[in-house]
């Protein structure tokens, strides 16, 4: 759309139920690149005992009209059963898991452990000069933790991307 003022960008979390077939991930990722949509994170895993359905969680951002298009374009794909916009739907939880490696000795090491405790991060690996922390939480919480660790000997970070689910008793 030319010469329309840029609409406000919104962050949306979408869950997409798909047939667990070859190429579906490429198809969805390719849809985003081909149409110029943003992917902030994308997670996928099969969730049924028969391994025939996968649940994909996509975090994206864009103006409301684009978010609506993303949903419509996803729904158009044959292997896609259902698209839920959690942000649109109402209260939901989102969680991400991160592994964070920090190296240091002395006070830095003690401080890293203290901060980890505050964030309820678990130590999943340790040497005399390093920790690997496991942290689960909202992306914000992980961002904050990583920022703090930068001053305390951060070595590397691995993040899973977000999974989300609507609050309450029923499925979305």
């Amino acid at each position, binding site marked *: 759309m030319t010469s*329309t003022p840029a609409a406000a960008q919104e962050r949306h979390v979408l869950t997409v139920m798909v*047939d667990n077939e070859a190429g579906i991930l*490429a198809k969805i990722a390719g849809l985003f690149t081909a149409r110029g949509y943003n992917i902030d994170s994308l997670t996928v895993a099969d969730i049924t005992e028969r391994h025939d359905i996968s649940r994909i969680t996509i975090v994206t951002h864009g103006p409301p009209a684009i978010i609506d298009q993303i949903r*419509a374009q996803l729904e158009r794909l*044959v*292997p896609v059963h259902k698209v839920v916009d959690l942000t649109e739907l109402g209260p939901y939880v989102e969680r991400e898991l991160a592994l964070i490696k920090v190296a240091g000795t002395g006070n830095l090491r003690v401080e890293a452990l203290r901060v980890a405790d505050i964030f309820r991060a678990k130590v999943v690996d340790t040497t005399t000069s390093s920790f690997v922390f496991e942290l689960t939480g909202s992306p914000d919480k992980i961002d904050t933790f990583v920022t703090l660790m930068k001053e305390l000997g951060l070595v590397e970070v691995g993040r899973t991307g977000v999974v989300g689910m609507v609050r309450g008793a029923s499925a979305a």
Partner: protein
Amino acid sequence: MSTERSGAEILVETLVAKGVEFVFGYPGGAVLPIYDALFGEDRIRHILVRHEAGAAHAAEGYARATGKPGVVLVTSGPGATNAVTGIADAFMDSIPMVVITGQVPTALIGTDAFQEADTVGITRHCTKHNYLVKDVADLATIVDEAFHIATSGRPGPVVIDIPKDVQIAHARWTGRAPQRRTRYDPQVAAAPAVIADAVAMIAAAERPVFYTGGGVINAGPAASEHLRALQALTGAPVTSTLMGLGAFPADHPAWLGMLGMHGTYEANMAMNQADLIVAVGARFDDRVTGRLDAFSPLSRKIHVDIDRSSINKTVRVDLPVIGDCAVVLAQMIDAWRAAGHEQTDQTGWFARIDGWRARDSLGYPLRGQDIMPQKAIERLYQLTRHRDPVISTEVGQHQMWAAQHFHFTAPNKWLTSGGLGTMGYGLPAAIGAQAGLPDALVIDIAGDASIQMNIQELGTATQYRLPVKVFVLNNEWMGMVRQWQELTYESRYSNSYSDSLPDFVKLAEAYGWKGIRITTMDELDAGIQAMIDHPGPVFVDCLVVKEANCFPMIPSGAAHTDMILYGDDVAGTMDDAAKALV
């Protein structure tokens, strides 16, 4: 009765069961088992093309003219990649098509084997769906589902990639494909409340316009009938996209002509001044809307489409109506009657339209004995209309002149590459249409440049005795490219001259066609008549005024009100922002 059959045999049996009459294809190493299964098969007719692009376009032409899905059979690697343009074309124009591609044996996939290409990967974003068949036991079910997907909802191409070992392997065959749960079931009828809102909006409008598109054609002949009935009830004028021509009769007083970049002045002005647009099976393409922020600024908009992703994609609408055009139009007719709506008085609206019509935007000057291309189309129309011909086109000036000056009163008579704009579409499309409609007069209106893009298919028509006609408007230019160079690049004609043209008449004769050359106005009618009268394929090389350009025209990125009418000065240049627009 259950027996063991090879994958190739199961494929053929399933195609027969799906009612397939024609397969357009070209053999090669990775489809030899399928070709062997087709040997001596009299239930399916295989049309051997000369290039796989021709197979895909022929299947498109067949589908568009008959309403049935087109079927393509090509080998792996180059066979598949050559077909990709036609697949992408069918995807853009929503043409139902099933493309069967051979693949190297399963064990060789991923090893850069001879004639290996990642067909499923390459076609992923230009198909409605695609499959790689890994187990022969799944083959029949996949073919069955592929036809369902290709033909239901918004139609489109589906690719089935079958490795050679799967074609040879055996599986149980019971005479029909095992049914599985339908996972693709698009909504065809709209909610009654939405329909009631839509007809109330039409009943309240003072300046309504129906803006219809290819979706009306795709929804079958009933959709065109319902469109005419709804127009009769509401009295609203009708315009159409390039793809929708024929759904509404061009000889109707409420017909505005095509809209958009090369549409009529009255159609574009009516869109600009309307207070209600009813879009039916049309997708607000950039060739239709022109500059988006100036598109139909005074109107509320209803959008009927089976594909929700078409709605609000570029133009925000007030009332989305999701469903099949034929079903929704029938619902609207019933709802209009049930609500007791009366036609509004549109006398003033039609008076304004008549004022725009009086500009005669399709007018053009005559040039003595030199043939104006518009005149050639006009005469072609006048001399063939009683035969109710099927017209295909290539892409360029001739295509737009055909859309403007050849008039259609029925659907499925107009085969053109709208969305992708594929030069080389017209000849194979005409061949496909003629295969499906052996008694029809099928004419490819072409340009001297476009026709060369798939000219090898002349041989296909000869082989199958298909009496297609090719009518070339020969101006020795890639006319539309030259027109844009005049408009945008101060007439620097970079590579747009058709140098070294063949002698088309001799070329046609070499292929066993009749060749006719028309050079003056005096020869025009007689040449066209000779073309019609000849029972076999005919190639007409009609030499037209070389410098004629296609008007009216809305320059790319301009508003509907900024039309260039004939005779306006079009020479010039544009700033970089305008040059960047397609």
